[in-house]
């Protein structure tokens, strides 16, 4: 088994997720090499062969070009598998590589059990063991599902990738998120509202609990997308990452993108009507209750302490 690990680079920086690919490779066994469209300035601490394509030449987002570079390396290395992160980069690139290789693509692997990839179904309520029927395969790894326990400390052997390729799409630049507002990362306590709060008027109830606890309130993505809460309070992959002393998730089902933004909190309380909601897996305490009844009562009681 030989795996090509596809690391990511954005806005001139290597993304730390290369270490998740390395842990996956360790768990799979066999050989591996790494591929990066990046730069000399920020190299993965990887003890192995790194195919390095210059981001200045090949572009940070240029799917046709990145696909071709990977295909050339698969051919050269006679690789059996190409591994990506299940990220905005992987979603866009992995299916192209799978298509060209006539390979099955297994998306969002959460673990490997006896060599069998396991993936989530229905918002992680169920899991699926996948059987691959092709000789080669492409996989994407769920964010945070893999990761080395310690910072890797290796130095790669670099093989520069050269070439003259052109793609059909033109990347014109990044747009940074609106800054300012609330830094939830610094809050000691965060109380977050999820879709389960039902209507925008109920945000106040969540904010009141946060205030009674001396913390800040946040929200999950659907609440922000519905414009019930401003984006600078969003917790999760596309929002802020928080690690407070106490995190209270109100009416949040626990999509992986949300969990990734709060699972390092010291103590997690979830309030949900659904006992089987995936948030229960991350929570220290799951209170099965109707928010509209429970949250105001809790707020009142805390204020009276």
């Amino acid at each position: 088994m030989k795996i090509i690990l596809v690391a990511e680079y954005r806005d001139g920086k290597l993304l730390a997720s290369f270490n998740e690919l390395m842990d996956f490779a360790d768990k799979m066994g066999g050989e591996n090499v790494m591929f990066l469209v990046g730069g000399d300035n920020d190299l993965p601490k990887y003890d192995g062969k790194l195919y390095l394509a210059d981001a200045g030449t090949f572009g940070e987002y240029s799917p046709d070009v990145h696909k071709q570079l990977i295909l050339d390396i698969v051919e050269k290395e006679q690789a059996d598998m190409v591994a990506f992160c299940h990220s905005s980069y992987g979603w866009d690139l992995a299916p192209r590589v799978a298509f060209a290789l006539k390979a099955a693509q297994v998306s969002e692997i959460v673990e490997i059990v006896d060599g069998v990839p396991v993936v989530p179904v229905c918002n992680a309520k169920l899991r699926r063991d996948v059987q691959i029927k092709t000789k080669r395969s492409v996989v994407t790894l769920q964010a945070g599902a893999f990761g080395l326990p310690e910072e890797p400390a290796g130095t790669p052997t670099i093989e520069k990738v050269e070439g003259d390729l052109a793609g059909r799409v033109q990347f014109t630049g990044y747009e940074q998120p609106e800054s300012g507002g609330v830094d939830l990362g610094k809050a000691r306590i965060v109380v977050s509202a999820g879709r389960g709060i039902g209507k925008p008027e109920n945000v106040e109830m969540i904010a009141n609990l946060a205030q009674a606890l001396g913390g800040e309130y946040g929200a999950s993505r659907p609440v922000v997308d519905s414009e019930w809460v401003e984006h600078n309070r969003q917790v999760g992959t596309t929002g802020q990452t928080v690690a407070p002393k106490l995190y209270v998730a109100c009416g949040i089902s626990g999509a992986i993108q949300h969990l990734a933004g709060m699972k390092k909190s010291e103590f997690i309380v979830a309030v949900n009507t659904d006992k089987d909601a995936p948030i229960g897996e991350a929570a220290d305490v799951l209170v099965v209750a109707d928010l509209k009844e429970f949250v105001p009562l809790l707020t009142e009681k805390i204020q009276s302490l």
Partner: protein
Amino acid sequence: MKILVCIKRVPDMESKFKVDADGTWYEKTDLAWRMNEYDEYAVEQAVQLKEQEEDSDLTVLCIGGDQVKETMKKALAMGCDRGAHIADDNSSSKEPFEIAGIIAEYAKDKSFDLVFTGMQSQDRGSAQVGILVAELLDIPGIATIVDFVYSGGEVKVKRELEGGVKACVTVKAPLVVTCQLGLNTPRYPTLPNIMKAKKKELLSLPVEDLLKVDSRQETAKIYFPEKKGGGLILEGDAPELVDKLIQILKEKTAVLA
């Protein structure tokens, strides 16, 4: 301008799921069904484009049993012009490459200028179909867009990346885009439009005519994840739950000190 939007009918994710008799998918009875959330954004964007461009024609495509026509009617009521129903009672066992193969086979000789899909389905969640369709049709495909502007054959999109950063991309039609949450606010179909949708063309085509690729993977089994145990579950009356939780917070954390 010819536009295609591909949608899927999925269960409400808050449903109580059960494993089916084969142990390879969830049991489809006793579930509430709806249009895949990401596809609602795709339909809305496709309808907006249709309204913007004169003389355009918008087809909504959906693969599945007869039940999916109900979901297609919502898309028609939102503003799609016609429906292409790919009749397939076994669509849930088809893997993303087969689904993409069916869509591409349908679309290949129809010269669509724009193809919209959701970035993933809420149930299978493989996030592959849209990009595979683009590869099969040999046109550009861009995943996970949160902003879309079309003008004179040129498309400007923003892709959502991690941490709230967006990548701005320009590309020429024809192309496929996969739609991410937050792209727009999907409209609610109005009653007159629901009535009008009943008269719109909704053709069923047998999947056998369009499935020309072989499956590359299958589900060995589906199951509930093992509960990792850790968490304490509190149930009961609200006042009692409040007291219990406060007790726990006092014991386990310093936040009430």
